[in-house]
């Protein structure tokens, strides 16, 4: 086994024992990146110097701790290579949001999640590709070109955190953090046979996450297995006074959930998750996964979430509305791309017209329209009211069941280019990942098997702040099946 194939917890054990050094591990990952990057194009910016400096620092800490006999007290992620989605602010490292409008922007500050990972000693190897400003499903909307799915290089890795997914599946990083506004960590995880968690809204600080839709955005881990997801989650979760929407309540110890029994857990299976618009092959694989949960002692119950379909228009009003304001700051005055013009207003229009790509413009126009005079009540306000109903629908369902399970996405990874030609149809592929964001509940993607050698994901949705149950069930499922251990043959 190569070092770059390790999970974080495997690497941690080797590092603590002194069998490998952080520098060796980092070099192995950097070499792997060099080898596969021309084919997967997972990264926008690589940071080998930063990574090696951090790795050397980590080795120093290991050496000191070993002398002091305190190795076991070191942070779990010390010396572990980390990929950061390029919508998350990193001090001194270019943060482009995969947009021409920010292609030379270097933030002076770290996102809180990055601060916490840096404190643990994680080693940043680079910034990963995404749809521009996280708006998309495939990385096809990146100003730097699409990433490729390591399971089939002609297909998308999903998105918007597709760079992370491509890197993880290609073993071009050990762990990653992405952002999820309507499925952006879960869907690419499902497309690339990975684990990802969208935490409860408010669980992880958004400070430094470049805003797409503020009331929906959450940072979450993307990893090769459930244990790693738990380690990263544990590192980044928790209150941050810099984010008013960050919840001030202690983070449960999810590590202790791994290996606990799942017998008696009530798992709701919404019939809408297997209805119209779902690829029958995806449905078949996920049904199989559900039967495994049953074998593990969980009780399956069919439930109904009738507003599932309505979540799409709710999302495509609220998210663009918020985005239209969040993206107003890109005006070429203080940072980022500027198109020169003789008057300020010309400069604004050209800077934004040239700096943003088609999907971002589409959403800015849509969101601006939904908020504009005469349309606010019909679109934005109505969407917010339906949002209330979707929340209530989840609350009601969780009176009946502990976890809701189904597919992550209704489709298999599509060929590169499809979403660009069919943007409006592509919106519909968000069907199964949007409502959780609208309701603010946590949701996890776990490898569920394959159809035609393409990965399929199982989605587990929990009550607000009940990440522990999600980890418990996901871990039990992972141990029972082992789908996540499979690696793409093409690389």
């Amino acid at each position, binding site marked *: 086994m190569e070092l770059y194939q390790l999970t974080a917890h495997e690497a941690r054990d080797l590092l603590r024992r002194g069998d490998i050094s952080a520098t060796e591990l980092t070099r192995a990952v950097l070499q792997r990146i060099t080898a596969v990057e021309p084919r997967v194009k997972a990264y926008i910016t690589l940071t080998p110097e930063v990574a090696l400096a951090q790795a050397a620092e980590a080795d120093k800490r290991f050496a000191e701790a070993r002398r002091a006999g305190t190795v076991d007290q070191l942070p779990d992620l010390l010396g572990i290579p980390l990929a950061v989605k390029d919508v998350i602010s990193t001090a001194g490292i270019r943060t482009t949001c995969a947009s021409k409008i920010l292609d030379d922007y270097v933030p002076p500050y770290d996102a809180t999640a990055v601060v916490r990972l840096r404190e643990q000693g994680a080693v940043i190897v680079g910034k990963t590709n995404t749809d521009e400003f996280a708006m998309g499903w495939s990385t096809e909307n990146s100003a730097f070109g699409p990433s490729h799915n390591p399971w089939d290089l002609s297909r998308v890795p999903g998105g918007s955190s597709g760079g992370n997914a491509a890197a993880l599946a290609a073993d071009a990083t050990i762990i990653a953090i992405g952002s999820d506004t309507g499925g952006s960590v879960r869907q690419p995880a499902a497309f690339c046979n990975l684990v990802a968690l969208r935490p409860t809204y408010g669980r992880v600080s958004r400070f430094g996450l470049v805003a797409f839709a503020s009331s929906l955005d959450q940072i979450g881990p993307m990893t090769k297995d459930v244990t790693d997801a738990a380690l990263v989650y544990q590192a980044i979760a928790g209150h941050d006074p810099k984010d008013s929407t960050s919840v001030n309540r202690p983070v449960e110890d999810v590590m202790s959930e791994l290996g606990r029994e799942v017998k008696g857990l009530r798992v709701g299976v919404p019939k809408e998750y297997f209805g119209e618009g779902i690829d029958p092959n995806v449905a078949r694989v996920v049904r199989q996964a559900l039967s495994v949960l049953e074998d593990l002692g969980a009780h399956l119950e069919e439930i109904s979430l009738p507003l599932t379909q309505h979540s799409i228009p709710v999302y495509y009003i609220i998210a663009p509305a918020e985005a239209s304001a969040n993206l107003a700051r890109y005006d070429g005055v203080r940072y980022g791309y500027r198109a020169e013009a003789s008057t300020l207003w010309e400069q604004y229009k050209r800077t934004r017209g040239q700096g943003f790509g088609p999907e971002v413009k589409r959403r800015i126009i849509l969101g601006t329209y939904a908020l504009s005079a005469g349309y606010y009540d019909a679109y934005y306000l109505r969407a917010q009211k339906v949002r209330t*109903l979707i929340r209530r629908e989840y609350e009601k369902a969780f009176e009946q069941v502990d976890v809701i399970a189904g597919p992550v996405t209704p489709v298999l990874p599509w060929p590169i280019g499809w979403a660009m030609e069919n943007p409006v149809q592509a919106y519909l592929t968000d069907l199964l990942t949007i409502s959780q964001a609208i309701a603010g509940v946590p949701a996890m993607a776990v490898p569920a098997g394959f159809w035609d050698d393409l990965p399929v994901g199982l989605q587990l949705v929990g009550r607000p702040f009940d990440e522990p149950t999600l980890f418990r069930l996901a871990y039990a499922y992972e141990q029972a099946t082992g789908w996540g251990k499979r690696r793409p043959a093409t690389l």
Partner: protein
Amino acid sequence: MPLSRQDVEHVAWLARLELTDEEIQRLQVELSAILEYARMLEQIDVSQVPPTATVLPMRNVMRDDEVAPSLPRDVVLANAPDQEEGYFRVPPVLETE
């Protein structure tokens, strides 16, 4: 009801986005389709439903009135496309458009 060219142009003006003719035409079609799809929401009776602006139940999240250090000015201006004597520099701002 499909969006007119003027609708798209007006919204693009509000959003300060320069669009090509082709973009405007595409957006007319695409936005009309999305808004048509959004009519699904009209089926739901929301007359008695309060809107959700945030899913969080928290209120009164505030900080104490304490001064924290600002950024050094060279850092503030580090990414600026144009600057002059400590200011960001922009083309002339005319009162009307």
